C-alpha cells in the first residue's frame, strides 16, 4: 500500500539538539546514551533523534505524542521555524535544511501553510485580511487574493464574518479563520500544530469531522500534531507515535490499536473507544454459503438448511452481490413450484465497505436479522459480519 503512493515529503535521519555543542550530544546518542543521560553529561537536550518517515501525497498524517515528546519541534523543523541539527527533509526534490534563506522563503510560501494551537491570528487585521495574509506577502494582486480569501472563508463556513476582528469571534470560529488563512494560501502541505487542542470538546469533534471532510474534498497533504490519541485515531490516515524525541510506531489507526509496537503504545491505547477505530474488515467472517442467481428455490433452501441460515446472499458469476433471499419466501416459492429465485431477491439489505468502523454497524443490526454484507468497491461480496463477531472483536481488541 505504501509503495504505490507517492511520497510528498521524505524525512530522513532528522535530529535536533537544543544547545551549543550539538556534535557532542549526537556522538553520545550514537554511543547509545539516552536523552536524560545526554542532558546530564552535556547540558544539551536531544529534541529529536533519527526521525524517518514519508508523507504521502494527499494523506492526513498525524504525529502524536505527549508533551515533551518532540512533536512540536518536529513540525517546526519541517518548515525550519526551528533549525534541524542534522538530517534531510526532501520536498519535491528540494532538501529543506540546505536551502538558503531566500530559497527557504520561497519554499515556505509555496509548500507550507500552518495552523496554530492558539490560532495566532493577527488581532489588528480583519478576518478577511487575516485570510489574505499569505497571498499578500507573496505580492498577489488585490482582486485575486480577495477572491481566494473569500473562497477559503466559504470553505470553512465563515461567510459574512469577513469584516469582523478576531477578538469578536468564538474560539471555534477563530480557528476556522486560522484554517482559512492556511487554505487561501494554496500551499501543497498543511501543517496543523495542535490545531484543535484549545477548543472545547464538542466543537473539537465538529472541527475534526469538518477537517476529515475538507481533506477528502481537497486531497490536501496534511500533517496534524496532537497529544490526544482519540483525535489521532479519529482523523488520521496514518499515525506516527513519538516518545522522548524518538519514533515509537508508524501505522494506520487500526494497526496502532491492534498490534501496538511495545508496552508504551499498548498502555497508551487502553481506554480508547475501539468501536470507532476497529473496522468491519476485522470482524468480518467468510460467507458460509451463497446462492447463485441461476439457482432454483429448492437448491437455495437446501443450502440454507445445510448451513443453518435464515437468509442467504445471492451473487452473480463475478461474486457481485445482487441481494438477499429469505428462507420463508424461498419455501413458499418452492411449494408454489417456481423454478427461479429472481423474483425473490430482496435488494434492501445491510451492506458496508471493509473500512467502515464497528460503531456504525451497531445500528444496522437493529433493522434486520440477516448478517451485514461486506463488499468492496465493485460490490463483490467479501464476507459478512454477525452480531456476535462485533462484540467479540471489541472484547478481544481490548486485551491486545
Amino acid at each position: 500500500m505504501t509503495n504505490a503512493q507517492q511520497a510528498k515529503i521524505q524525512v530522513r535521519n532528522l535530529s535536533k539538539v537544543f544547545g551549543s555543542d550539538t556534535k557532542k550530544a549526537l556522538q553520545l546518542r550514537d554511543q547509545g546514551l539516552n536523552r536524560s543521560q545526554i542532558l546530564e553529561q552535556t547540558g544539551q537536550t536531544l529534541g529529536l533523534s533519527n526521525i524517518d518517515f514519508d508523507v504521502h501525497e494527499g494523506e492526513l498524517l498525524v504525529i502524536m505524542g505527549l508533551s515533551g515528546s518532540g512533536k512540536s519541534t518536529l513540525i517546526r523543523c519541517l518548515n525550519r521555524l526551528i533549525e534541524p541539527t542534522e538530517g534531510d527533509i526532501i520536498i519535491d526534490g528540494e532538501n529543506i535544511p540546505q536551502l538558503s534563506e531566500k530559497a527557504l522563503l520561497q519554499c515556505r510560501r509555496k509548500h507550507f501553510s500552518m495552523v496554530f494551537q492558539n490560532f495566532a491570528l493577527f488581532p489588528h487585521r480583519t478576518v478577511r485580511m487575516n485570510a489574505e495574509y499569505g497571498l499578500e506577502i507573496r505580492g498577489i494582486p488585490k482582486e485575486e487574493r480577495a477572491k481566494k480569501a473569500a473562497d477559503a472563508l466559504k470553505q470553512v463556513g465563515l461567510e459574512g464574518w469577513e469584516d469582523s476582528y478576531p477578538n469578536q469571534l468564538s474560539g471555534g470560529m477563530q480557528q476556522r479563520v486560522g484554517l482559512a488563512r492556511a487554505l487561501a494560501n494554496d500551499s501543497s502541505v498543511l501543517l496543523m500544530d495542535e490545531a484543535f487542542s484549545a477548543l472545547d470538546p464538542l466543537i473539537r469533534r465538529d472541527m475534526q469531522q469538518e477537517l476529515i471532510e475538507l481533506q477528502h474534498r481537497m486531497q490536501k497533504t496534511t500533517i496534524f500534531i496532537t497529544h490526544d490519541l482519540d483525535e489521532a485515531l479519529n482523523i488520521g490516515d496514518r499515525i506516527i507515535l513519538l516518545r522522548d524525541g524518538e519514533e515509537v510506531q508508524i501505522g494506520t489507526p487500526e494497526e496502532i490499536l491492534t498490534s501496538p509496537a511495545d508496552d508504551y503504545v499498548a498502555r497508551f491505547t487502553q481506554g480508547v473507544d475501539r468501536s470507532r477505530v476497529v473496522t468491519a474488515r476485522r470482524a468480518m467472517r467468510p460467507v458460509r454459503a451463497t446462492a447463485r442467481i441461476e439457482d432454483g428455490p429448492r437448491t437455495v433452501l437446501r443450502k440454507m438448511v445445510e448451513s443453518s441460515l435464515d437468509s442467504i446472499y445471492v451473487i452473480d458469476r463475478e461474486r457481485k452481490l445482487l441481494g438477499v433471499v429469505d428462507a420463508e419466501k424461498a419455501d413458499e416459492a418452492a411449494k408454489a413450484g417456481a423454478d427461479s429465485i429472481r423474483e425473490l431477491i430482496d435488494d434492501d439489505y445491510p451492506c458496508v465497505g471493509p473500512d467502515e468502523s464497528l460503531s456504525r454497524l451497531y445500528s444496522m443490526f437493529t433493522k434486520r436479522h440477516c448478517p451485514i454484507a461486506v463488499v468492496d468497491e465493485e460490490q463483490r461480496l467479501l464476507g459478512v459480519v454477525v452480531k456476535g463477531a462485533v462484540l467479540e472483536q471489541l472484547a478481544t481488541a481490548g486485551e491486545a
Partner: protein
Amino acid sequence: MNFEIPRIPLGSWIESGLNFLTTEFSGVTRAISRTTQAGINLLNDGLMWLPEWALLGLIVLLCWRLSGRRLAIGAALGLALIWNLGLWNPMIQTLTLVVIATLVAVVIALPLGILAAVSDRFYRVIMPVLDFMQTMPAFVYLIPAIPFFGIGSVSGIFATVIFAMPPAIRFTTLGIRQVPTELVEAADAFGSTRTQKLVKVQLPLSLPTLMGGINQTIMLSLSMVVIAAMIGANGLGSEVWRAIQRLRPGDGFEAGLAVVIMAMLLDRLTQSFRGRKRAK
C-alpha cells in the same frame, strides 16, 4: 606600604575628546545648528502667526475630538489662564522646542529600538548606554552642547534629545519583543521577509507600547527644555530662570504653573491617542 595612586584624569580626557570633536566637526555641527534653528523659527513663527484665540480654539477642538469634553474644557481654562498671565509667547516657544526635540528623538529612537529588538547583541550594547543617558544628571548634557552648538535653543534641543530619547528606544524594543511568539511564527511560517514581518505584524502590534514610549519622551522633553533655559533656550524656562535671578517667587510660580498645564495637556492628549488605537 603607603604609595599614592595617581588620580585618573578622566575629566581632562573627556574635555580633550570634546575639543577634538568640536574643532574637527565644526562644519557638521554648524550645519546641524543651522537646520535646527531654521526648523525652530519656522514652527515658532507659524504658531505665533495664528492669533491666540485661533490657536486656543484649535487645541480645544483637538482635545475634544481625540479625548472628550472634559479635556476640552480643561484645555480651554488652562490655556486661557496662560494667555491671561501674559505667558502665551513663552509657551509657544516651549511648545516648539518640545515638538522638535520629540520629533528628532523619535526619528533616532525608532530604528535603534527596532534594531535592539531584532538583534540580541545590539540589545546588550545599547541597554547600558541607555541607563547611562538616563541616570547622568540632566544638567551635564548642557555643558558640551555649548561648544557644539553655541548658546541658544539648538543647544537646548541637543541636550533634550539625549535626555528624552531613551524611553522611546526602550518602549519600541519592549513593544516588538512583547509580540506573542506564535504570531511571529505565523508570519514566518507563511514566508514573510524580515521587513514584511516588521511592517505588517510586529510594528502594528507594538503600537500601543510604542505610543507609551513617545508619551514618556514628550514629558521628559518638556522637563528638559525648561532646564535648558540655563543655556539660553527660550520659553517658559527662561521666565522661571529670570524669576530665580531676580528673586521673584510670584513670577516663577506663574511660569511653573504654565509648564504644569502644558504637561498635563500633552500627556492626556497623547494618552488618549494611545487609548483610541487600542480600542480599535
